[in-house]
């Protein structure tokens, strides 16, 4: 039996939040300049059913595989999946009405006001939801009268909350002069907490765990929790654990821009291997600021605004169980400070070196997962096809190393790559949306090795011009019998 830790369970989450698109960073700024944009946004939003039936979302939830997506004609939004289900093989799609319930349940500081009527609707919806718990319902209360909500919006800089275009509540700030506690910032943080917690609850169910079974959480979400004296102070992980009633766990955050999940999985796996923790959860909640980020491209092409969902991810890492896929800690690839920002060196550090360390050639690893941003979201804005551009670089590197010929570039990409299917939720697309698919294929004996690579853009924070990234190899558990092999 190997001594490397395993990914024992995983869960993926999508939350349909069309009425929050207005609060994504880009739409929020642009509607401030051009209020008419609200009308255009409203006429390009999708229904929950349309979002569920959208092929890339079905791949994200595990009801379709990446290779199925490659066979669906583009544009994918014009080819909905028939009889699509909101409950996926690997995850759940939560509608906005239910999410309002989870959001209120996550709120311990009376930040969210909902009208009494809407509170009743949300309460009924939440009662039936398989990921809600009785404590959620207790936190819903009876609601706030509409006049109080309107007063808060007009006089106290609260932000209006809508459902299906109708005013149903407001989101409060918590300090008049503290930029870190303004309504918009707190909304972003609370949405990360609520979606992260739903993903973790789903993970525990899928693993057959109770909340008491996990001992540590690492959040790799992209938000900054804190007040004016400690902006970004963090520990979203522990707040999420609290919402999941995980009495015997604590946690902390690991941040590294879009590469966060890979760092968090490597840190988590290392803590498990060292014996410090035994049942460790890595989680990422959704990112409000990314909603509607590419909206002008979508409006220009008169297509639906596809960035109308929050994403969520959760993974359970444990010591080797003889079955689950193994994180090869001896393979970890990293971008060193001295490696510079040259693409060739970045790719060598993140792709060639980790494989070489475990004796694998680039052209011999079964699959490579890179940042799986859905190209249908990015291309209309002129932002390119992120996964395809990265696969091309990897293939070019294989050519330069003499592993494949120039004519084999397309085949290399087709065999080892995959189309992007993740919503552009920052850290969420960071290679790990494929982890569930890889685990299933490994369990079935169809896949032996998969490399997970993600890059981060440190320069966005204006503290360094450096590139960044990390990678690791996931391997079929050697303890599995090969008899199953298809």
């Amino acid at each position: 039996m190997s001594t490397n830790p395993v990914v024992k369970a995983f869960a993926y989450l999508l939350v349909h939040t069309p009425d929050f698109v207005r609060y994504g960073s880009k739409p929020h700024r642009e509607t401030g300049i051009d209020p008419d944009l609200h009308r255009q946004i409203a006429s390009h939003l999708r229904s929950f059913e349309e979002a569920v039936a959208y092929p890339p979302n079905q791949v994200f939830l595990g009801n379709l595989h990446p290779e199925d997506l490659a066979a669906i004609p583009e544009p994918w939004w014009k080819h909905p999946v028939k009889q699509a289900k909101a409950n996926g093989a690997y995850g759940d799609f939560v509608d906005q009405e239910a999410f309002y319930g989870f959001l209120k349940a996550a709120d311990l500081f009376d930040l969210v006001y909902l009208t009494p009527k809407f509170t009743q609707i949300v309460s009924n919806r939440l009662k039936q939801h398989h990921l809600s718990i009785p404590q959620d319902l207790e936190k819903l209360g009876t609601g706030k009268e509409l006049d109080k909500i309107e007063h808060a919006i007009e006089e106290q800089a609260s932000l209006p909350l809508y459902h299906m275009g109708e005013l149903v509540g407001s989101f409060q700030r918590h300090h008049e002069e503290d930029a870190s506690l303004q309504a918009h910032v707190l909304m972003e943080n609370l949405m990360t907490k609520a979606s992260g917690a739903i993903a973790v609850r789903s993970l525990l169910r899928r693993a057959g765990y109770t909340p008491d079974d996990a001992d540590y959480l690492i959040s790799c979400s992209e938000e900054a929790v804190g007040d004016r004296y400690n902006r970004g102070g963090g520990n979203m992980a522990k707040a999420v654990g609290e919402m999941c009633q995980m009495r015997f766990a604590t946690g902390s955050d690991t941040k590294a821009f879009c590469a966060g999940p890979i760092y968090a999985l490597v840190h988590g796996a290392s803590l498990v291997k060292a014996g410090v923790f035994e049942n460790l959860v890595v989680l990422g909640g959704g990112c409000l600021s990314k909603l509607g980020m590419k909206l002008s491209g979508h409006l220009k092409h008169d297509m639906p605004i596809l960035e109308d969902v929050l994403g969520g991810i959760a993974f359970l890492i444990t010591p080797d169980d003889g079955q689950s896929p193994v994180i090869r800690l001896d393979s970890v690839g990293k971008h060193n400070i001295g490696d510079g920002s040259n693409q060739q060196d970045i790719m060598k550090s993140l792709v060639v070196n980790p494989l070489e360390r475990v004796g694998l050639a680039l052209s011999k690893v079964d699959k490579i997962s890179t940042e799986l941003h859905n190209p249908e979201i990015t291309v209309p804005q002129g932002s390119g096809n992120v996964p395809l551009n990265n696969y091309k670089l990897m293939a070019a590197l294989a050519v330069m190393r003499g592993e494949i010929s120039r004519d084999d570039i397309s085949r290399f990409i087709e065999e080892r790559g995959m189309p992007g299917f993740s919503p552009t939720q920052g850290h969420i697309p960071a290679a790990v949306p494929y982890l569930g698919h890889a685990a299933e294929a490994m369990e079935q004996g169809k896949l032996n090795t998969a490399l997970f690579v993600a890059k981060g853009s440190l320069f966005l924070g204006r503290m360094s011009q450096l590139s960044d990234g990390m990678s690791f190899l996931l391997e079929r558990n050697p303890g599995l019998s090969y008899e199953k092999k298809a």
Partner: protein
Amino acid sequence: MFEGKYVVALGERDGVPGPAIEEILTAAGANVISTVTECFV
């Protein structure tokens, strides 16, 4: 071609990043006055 010119390096994360453009153009004799890398996601 660089004489008397001020050069801006506007790179991209998944293409040629800003600092790599700066290094190459500086070696070519350019006066690079601003280096930026764009991230589209």
